[in-house]
């Protein structure tokens, strides 16, 4: 668990997923820089390629494994909307925010504080309004 954490942190940092400009370039599809180019699409292709490799990998070595399912639930779309907006604004998904902290980017503390507050707020709301949990086993 520790080693995969380290590997993920290194990958996120080396890939540029913890760099606001790179993430912004990924999300603007290079359009603000005179059209898509290989460098503008670097992260996009990286992510897309990773998904394809993961698909292939899972089929090859884990075809019958019982990976927990993720069905579409009430919060799937709305949650994703909020997450997408937040990611574009901060340039960080949760993993990237932690990596940014490691890279000595003090501003990431603000991002992380927000993420933790958001998660905390969600749980409060979930109990108050009786939303369902996403998983029954964790």
């Amino acid at each position, binding site marked *: 668990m520790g080693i*995969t954490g380290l590997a993920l942190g290194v990958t996120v*940092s080396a890939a540029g997923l913890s760099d606001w400009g790179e993430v912004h370039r990924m*999300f603007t599809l290079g359009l603000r820089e005179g059209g898509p180019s290989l460098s503008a699409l670097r992260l996009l292709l990286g992510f897309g390629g990773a*998904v394809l490799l993961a698909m292939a990998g899972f089929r090859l070595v884990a075809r019958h494994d*019982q990976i927990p399912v993720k069905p579409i639930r009430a919060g799937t779309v709305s949650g994703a909307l909020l997450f997408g907006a937040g990611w574009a604004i901060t340039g960080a998904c949760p993993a990237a925010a932690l990596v940014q902290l*490691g890279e000595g980017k003090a501003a990431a503390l603000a991002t992380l504080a927000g*993420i933790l507050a958001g998660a905390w*707020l969600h749980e409060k709301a*979930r109990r108050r309004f009786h939303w369902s949990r996403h998983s029954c086993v964790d």
Partner: protein
Amino acid sequence: MNGFLPWWGTALALGALTVGYWVVVRRPLGVSGVLARFTRVGEELEFDRGVAAVTDVDQAALEAEMLAMTLEAFGNVGESPPDLVTAAPPGATAAAGPMEPAAHASVTGRACAPVPPLGAHFTFLAMLVAGGALVALLRGSWGAGLGADLPARIAGGPGNLGVLAGGGLLVGFGTALCGGCSAGHGLTGTGRLMPGSLVSTGVYFATAVATALLLSGMNG
């Protein structure tokens, strides 16, 4: 400067990590859920104690306790082959021998491991931070701003941090609401073609693109 991985390097690394994490740890790779645990430490520690009560114990004692509970619930059930007691459920394989694990549920492949204890999860998150530190130190870029300027409209001054915190709030709430982040949904979930993940990933990506284009338009 482009000291970043080429697209295929990123693809290989993330793809391998996603599948490797499942094969080695038997948990789906994801970060938002792990991070969220630390907003309710007391409850999570209690939950961990419950997990330990069934996993971290002497196997013989566990079996004895299980048998006792079984007796209490169902009365006397011996170790005899089960096919005389109940009809085989649909999809069952031929009756297993008495000492073999019950095969009727067609349990193939690896099962998901129980939730790791909070300590292990903390290590995972700490190593994410360490990974960033390692690369930054190697690059000699430790502590260098947030990486490329935030749009002029929201860059500079204390308002900057407010925007980041606000954006972070969206990320924290949103990932909790949709049940995953770029790793959990984007990599693991889509890698397994999970419906919730496919929808989430599509929506968050489209929203991120729209937001980013909006922001860059604001930059003037």
